[in-house]
C-alpha cells in the first residue's frame, strides 16, 4: 500500500486552521459548560422538588439523547427560532456548552456530595451562612475532587467537537473529510487528523495532571 504524504502536506494549512477552530470550540464549550454546570448542579441539589425537577430533566435530556441530534436541533430549529439565524460555529459552541454543562453538573454534584457532612456542620456551627459554607468550605474541596472527572469530560468534549463537521463547521475533522473526498483516500487525511487530535488530548492530559498537582500541594 502506498502512502501519499503530499496529500497531508497539501492540506496541512487547512488542518492547522481546523485545529485552531477545534481548540476554540472546545475551550469555549468547556468554560461555558463549567459555569452553567455549576448552577445546574446547585439547582439539581435543591431540596424543593419543583425547583429540582426542571434541572433533573435538563440533565436527562442532554445526557440521554445523541449529541448529533442535539446539534441538528439547535442548528436548524432552536437557534434560528431564538436568534433569527445562526452560524455553524455558533451552533456547535452552544450545543457543546449545553451538553457539557449537563455532565459537568453531575461531576460537581458528585464532588459536593462526596464531602463529609462534618465539614458543613463544623462551618455552620461557627456561624457561617449557607453561602459562606459553600464558598469557603465545600466548593474548594469539591472542585479539587472534580478535576480528574472534569479532565475526562474535557477530552470527550474535544473529540465531540468533531461532530461540527456534519454541519460544515470548518474544524479539524471537516478538513479531513474534505481531503478524503477530494482524493477518495481515507488513510492519509484521517490518520493525520487523528494524530492532531491525539496531540491535543495529550497536551490537555498533561495540563490537567499539572493542575491536579498544583491543587494538591496543600
Amino acid at each position, binding site marked *: 500500500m502506498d502512502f501519499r504524504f503530499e496529500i497531508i502536506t497539501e492540506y496541512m494549512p487547512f488542518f492547522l486552521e481546523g485545529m485552531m477552530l477545534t481548540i476554540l470550540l472546545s475551550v469555549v464549550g468547556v468554560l461555558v459548560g463549567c459555569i452553567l454546570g455549576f448552577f445546574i448542579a446547585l439547582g439539581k441539589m435543591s431540596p424543593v422538588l419543583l425547583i429540582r425537577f426542571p434541572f433533573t430533566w435538563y440533565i436527562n435530556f442532554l445526557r440521554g439523547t445523541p449529541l448529533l441530534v442535539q446539534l441538528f436541533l439547535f442548528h436548524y430549529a432552536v437557534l434560528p427560532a431564538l436568534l433569527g439565524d445562526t452560524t455553524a460555529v455558533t451552533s456547535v459552541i452552544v450545543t457543546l456548552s449545553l451538553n457539557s454543562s449537563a455532565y459537568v453538573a453531575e461531576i460537581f454534584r458528585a464532588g459536593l456530595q462526596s464531602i463529609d457532612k*462534618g465539614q458543613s456542620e*463544623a462551618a455552620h*456551627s*461557627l*456561624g457561617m451562612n449557607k453561602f*459562606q459554607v459553600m464558598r469557603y468550605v465545600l466548593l474548594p474541596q469539591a472542585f479539587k475532587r472534580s478535576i480528574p472527572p472534569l479532565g475526562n469530560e474535557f477530552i470527550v468534549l474535544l473529540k465531540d467537537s468533531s461532530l461540527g463537521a456534519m454541519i460544515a463547521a470548518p474544524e479539524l475533522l471537516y478538513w479531513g473529510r474534505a481531503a478524503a473526498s477530494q482524493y477518495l483516500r481515507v488513510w492519509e487525511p484521517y490518520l493525520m487528523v487523528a494524530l492532531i487530535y491525539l496531540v491535543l488530548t495529550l497536551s490537555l492530559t498533561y495540563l490537567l495532571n499539572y493542575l491536579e498537582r498544583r491543587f494538591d500541594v*496543600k
Partner: protein
Amino acid sequence: MITVKHLKKTFGDLEVLKDINVEIKQKEVVVVIGPSGSGKSTFLRCLNLIESVTDGTVTIDGQEITDKKMDINKLRAEVGMVFQQFNLFPHKTVLQNITLPMITVRKWKKQDAEAKAMELLAKVGLQDKASVYPDSLSGGQKQRVAIARALGMEPKIMLFDEPTSALDPEMVGEVLEVMKQLAKEGMTMVVVTHEMGFAREVGDRVIFMDDGYVVEENEPIALFQNPQHERTKAFLSKVL
C-alpha cells in the same frame, strides 16, 4: 444560661429525644453520659440547631432559639462546638482554619484575626503548627486546633461532642488538659463524653441519659457513688 423544655426529636419513625428538660447555669460544666443510642449526642446538637428540633423549646441567654424568626447563624457564632471527628477544613492551614470564621462571620481584619489566632494556638500549645495543613497533625493536635477554632469566635458556651473518642489513648490527656484549663477560666461547657475521670474532676454536674430521657442528674461524686436508678447503676457498673 441554657433552658431546655420538653425537647423532642424524631428521625422518621424513630424517637431519639422524648422529653428533655434541662437547665444549665452560667460557668457550669455539665457532663452528659449514657450508653450509645441514648440520644446524648443528638441532645447536644440540638443546642446549636445543627440538628433541627421536632418539638419543645431551647432558650439560650434569654433568647428562644427554637423560634423560627431567630437568626440562627448569629446564635451559632455564640455557641462553639467541638466534634468527635475534629472536622478541620483540610484545604486550609491551621491558622486559616481559625481565622476563616473570624474574617467571614465576625468581619475581623485579617491581621487582627491572625494575631488572635496565634494567641489561641499558643494557648493550646500549637503555635509552631500555624502554617501546616491539618493532614500532618496527630489526632490530639487536630482536636486542640478545633478547640482553638471554636474559641476564636469568643463563644459564651462550648459544646463538646465526644471530643476524645476518636483519639489514640496517649493523646486523650492533652485534649482534656485544654478542656480543664477552659473550665477553670469559667467557660460554660456541655460535654458529651465517656471520660468518667474528667466528669469527676471537672464536672459541676453529670446528666445520665438513656433511651431519649434524662434518667438522673447530680453532682459527679454523688451520681457515681450513689446512683438512684437501676439503669444508671447498670451503666456505671460497665464503665467505672
